């Protein structure tokens, strides 16, 4: 019996969510009196994971696995779980992990709970709390299968340092050709910019900014904060900003530490997409804008006056605090 996690990395570096699911899995492992094993791909040195409670790493090295492949990766995780007699597999909620999680569940005959937001309520019976109804409710789910797959919602547990002794093995997984029927031909990725998925802070603009020519304000504020930029649906529909920046129900979900909405009224579909962000700030001229009902901090004011001041003050703050 042990816990398995899939520790996601990018260009040889672990993503923050890898440390978060490690911290989470370590906590459950302690309760059950077992240890955490991580599956990694093409990571010669995964010792950083030991800082968050991972005792063992099974690293798979293969040229076939340099780019993510849901079926092949899920098959490797399945083989690792069987080798370790794992009863719990913990995954993150990135696009890639959400892609492979149901495949892992089927191959292990495991029950799967996604969007889990807290430690299990109980381990016997095994109950977890998860987001449902677009963050408007929680659902307590009981998993009755012997093996369980959990998808942890981003930023719901945080990182907990817990240094343990560690060893890394190279894992010779069997890679049948049938795992590679879905081929990635090319990848287009924005480089040198914080992505919405990885960002700790997101600065988002709405129609209140009056036109694409004013997006310099959003970008400058984002750059001061090391944040990603996003926009509301009308803004992407109007073509002011690319679709990839649209956040909300039919756009990208945002579960960040700080979400700053500028000139966004707060339509219910927008809120549904950003609601699991921890702290929300709204800047809007209209005091009746629905966003004020869901925000933690609000400024009623004109973005064209407030935001430049905010940028200036934040620069001073960063200079003093860095």
């Amino acid at each position, binding site marked *: 019996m042990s816990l398995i996690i899939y520790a996601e990395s990018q260009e040889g570096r672990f993503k923050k969510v890898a440390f978060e699911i490690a911290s989470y899995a370590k906590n459950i492992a302690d309760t059950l009196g077992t240890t955490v094993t991580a599956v990694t791909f093409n990571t010669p040195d995964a010792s950083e994971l030991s800082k968050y409670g991972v005792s063992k790493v099974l690293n798979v090295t293969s040229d076939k696995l340099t780019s993510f492949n849901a079926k092949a990766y899920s098959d490797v995780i399945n083989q690792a779980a069987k080798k370790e007699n794992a009863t719990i597999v913990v995954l993150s909620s990135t696009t890639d992990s959400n892609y492979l999680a149901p495949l892992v569940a089927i191959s292990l005959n495991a029950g*799967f*709970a*996604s969007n889990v937001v807290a430690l299990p309520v109980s381990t016997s019976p095994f109950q977890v709390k998860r987001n449902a109804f677009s963050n408007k409710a*929680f659902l307590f789910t009981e998993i009755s299968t012997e093996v369980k797959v959990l998808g942890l919602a981003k930023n719901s547990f945080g990182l907990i340092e817990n240094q343990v002794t560690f060893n890394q093995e190279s894992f010779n997984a069997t890679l049948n050709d049938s795992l590679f029927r879905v081929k990635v*031909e*090319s990848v287009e990725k924005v480089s040198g910019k914080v992505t919405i998925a990885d960002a700790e802070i997101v600065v988002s603009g709405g129609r209140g900014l009056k036109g694409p020519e004013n997006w310099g304000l959003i970008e400058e504020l984002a750059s001061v904060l090391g944040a990603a930029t996003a926009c509301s649906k009308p803004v992407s529909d109007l073509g002011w900003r690319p679709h990839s920046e649209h956040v909300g129900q039919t756009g990208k979900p945002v579960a960040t530490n700080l979400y700053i909405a500028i000139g966004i009224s707060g339509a219910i579909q927008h809120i549904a997409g950003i609601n699991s962000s921890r702290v929300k700030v709204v800047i809007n001229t209209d005091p009746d804008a629905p966003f004020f009902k869901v925000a933690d901090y609000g*400024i009623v004011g004109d973005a064209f006056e407030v935001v430049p001041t905010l940028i200036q003050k934040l620069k001073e703050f960063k200079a003093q605090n860095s």
Partner: protein
Amino acid sequence: MKILVCISHVPDTTSKINFINGDSEFDTNGVQFVINPNDEFGLTRAIWFQEQQAATVTVVNVGGPETEPTLRKALAIGANEAIRINAISTDGFFVAQQLAEVVKQGSYDVIICGKESLDYNGGMVPGMLAGILDANFVNSCTDLKIDGSQVTAIREIDGGKETISTSLPIVIGGQKGLVEEKDLRIPNMRGIMTARTKTLTVLEPVASNVATKAVKFEKPPARSAVKLISADNIDELINLLHNEAKVI
């Protein structure tokens, strides 16, 4: 080409979310139900294949008789026929097992689901269905082209997109981008009239394994009111974000 579009009957986004029977059940009272938005993008793309590449489109839903208006709407939009599996779904795994049976019986080449439903947000049905069928699978799919048995698809990834090539049969977890919002169709009178005479087959569920069950729901605690900060006092906002919220 035979396409199966899997439809979830979900509360409209603007619905009030309440629970009854000791918080064990969603309160459907006064709730307007719609085709799950992610499914509707997939359905509309399927209709495009029907019109451009002579595909036939079947829509399927797992649910009680009360979900039939949602299937009729899909027929009015242009699907050729509908199937309702007469069961109350217990989780995504249950739905995937039921859908797998429909796929096996009907030998579909393309199965399009939404990547996630608005109600349970499980995001597990397309992947589990692909897993059960051992079919090729593309999730978070924003573009789909089919030429003979060759498939080209685009998958949205964190911070970009990737172009994928594969072959039929395929399961798609679809979303916006398969078609754009402006391409979605509102059923016209002729569509609604024709939909009445199209076949809607009701099937009983097949025996299935149980993996999870919903125990109870909980509403998030009421939020404390927004702290308003004067536009002339930006220092206070920075102070609160730094010292109180600890996010900068």
